[in-house]
């Protein structure tokens, strides 16, 4: 029960802070809001008993988002947000896609019968159980699993994904688009950890994919900022609307 409450609280914090990324006009606040969202995800991983992943997420995102902050201050015209410039385009399209993606994800999370019918504890009492999986001796004691934890986690992932899509489609600045991509990947991470926790918690190899996605997040930021730096040096801005021509 506490676990469900913790997951809901951290998930809501992640979604709200993720939405806050695109609502503020101050760039550093935007980056720190994204940091808050990713840190809430790290805490959510800890609540889902993926301890190493949670600590890793907390650590990596602190550094990554601080670097994102400095790049935003470098490449954006009004980093303090005091000029209240309009930084978005095609807003209605972006909102539509974001809402469609988010609702589809939430529907996929809530409607199907994800949770297995068999209570987890029965299949892990040392017998091979109906599915014939091998269990090593000394496995952790069977966790008490609530069957509504998976739909909740998947819905949180869907919410983050929808906000990310809104960000990618509505923002004109390359750095802000990258923040939307980070949110989308964060939603994917939540899904991965939730599925690991509720379907294969005894097999830590399931966390390797999560490590892969985290590495990809870091790498895509590195390459993206390299492209942004090259573009900024050539043209003086990283706005996508000014990059519509192939010339130069």
């Amino acid at each position, binding site marked *: 029960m506490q676990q469900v409450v913790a997951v809901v609280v951290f998930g809501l914090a992640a979604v709200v802070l993720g939405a806050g990324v695109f609502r503020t006009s101050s760039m550093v606040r935007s980056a*720190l809001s994204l940091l808050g969202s990713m840190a809430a995800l790290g805490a959510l991983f800890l609540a889902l008993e993926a301890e190493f992943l949670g*600590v890793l997420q907390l650590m990596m995102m602190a*550094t990554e988002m601080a670097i994102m902050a400095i790049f935003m201050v470098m490449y954006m015209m009004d980093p303090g947000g005091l000029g209240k410039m309009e930084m978005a385009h095609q807003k209605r399209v972006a909102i539509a896609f974001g809402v469609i993606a988010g609702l589809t994800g939430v529907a996929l999370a809530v409607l199907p019968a994800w949770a297995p019918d068999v209570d987890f504890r029965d299949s892990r009492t040392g017998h091979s159980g109906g599915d014939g999986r091998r269990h090593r001796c000394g496995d952790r004691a069977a966790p008490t699993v609530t069957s509504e934890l998976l739909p909740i986690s998947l819905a949180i992932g869907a919410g983050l994904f929808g906000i990310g899509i809104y960000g990618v489609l509505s923002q004109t600045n390359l750095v802000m688009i990258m923040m939307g991509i980070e949110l989308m990947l964060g939603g994917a991470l939540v899904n991965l950890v939730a599925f690991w926790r509720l379907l294969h918690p005894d097999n830590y190899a399931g966390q390797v994919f999560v490590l892969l996605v985290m590495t990809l997040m870091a790498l895509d930021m590195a390459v993206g900022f390299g492209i942004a730096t090259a573009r900024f040096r050539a043209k003086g801005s990283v706005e996508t609307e000014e990059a519509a021509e192939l010339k130069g």
Partner: protein
Amino acid sequence: MTSWWLVLAVLLGVYAIAVLEEWTMTGRIAPSAPLRSGLALLGRESLVPRQPDRVLFELAPLVLLIAAVLSLAVLPLAPGLLFADLATGALFVNAALAYVMVAVVMAGWAPNAPFALVAGWRFLGQLVAYSMLIVMPITAVGMRAQSLATSAVVDSQAPLWNVVAQPLGFGLFSLAALAVAFLPPFDLPIAPSELAGGVFGEYTGARLVIVRLGRLVLVLSLATAVTVFYLGGWLGPVLPPWAWTSIKVLAVAATMLSAGRYVPRVTIDLMLAWAWKLGIPLALVNILWVGITLLLAKSG
């Protein structure tokens, strides 16, 4: 019951480090100086700069304090005497220390002041320099302990302390610890003479008390980390375990606070160059060295 003893130990440790810092700066041991200066600060006017980022301005000292306290929470005073016995304790220390950087960057941006801004971004560069040098020695320490739990790390040093078994890692970790706590010679973010107080130069009154408290807890946490990872934690012959930890922590803290005062401040370009061109190869050599010694010990 244990947590109350731990809280008391942390408060006493913080006070002791404050007294030590005063001693390294003035050469006098003034036991009531921290209390007096803290109360005096609380009584002074609390100024807020013009057009700050108000949310970040208030948050930065709190994040510094919380990050320092969290990093201290997983470090043991004695066997079983710690706030949270995480299986990934050593990594959690590093994760909490990363938020120190977040706090300093926030404090640099928030007051809308040029010196603070420059100091904050310089600390981000400093993080790029020291972060590998913090994590790689921790990796080597975890290799020897076959675990990331801090209690396991201390237990693995029972035959031989890590300062002797992994001297390269000890040197790099100690220097990186100085850089995390922005102590001289790595005190770029608060650069008293160069940047007019740096990131925390615009903080006054009660907020400055929280900043100073956060910094003291950070120094305590890093001294405890050096003790736990390299100096054998609570291991020692005659005294009870908590006494050994306390003695070692205070000795390390005194060294950390005084060592840098004889060396000029390291500028950011030199710091990055030395860290990446010399520090990281040495850290990798340290990991290689630990791996080789562990394999030899296992086979021999």
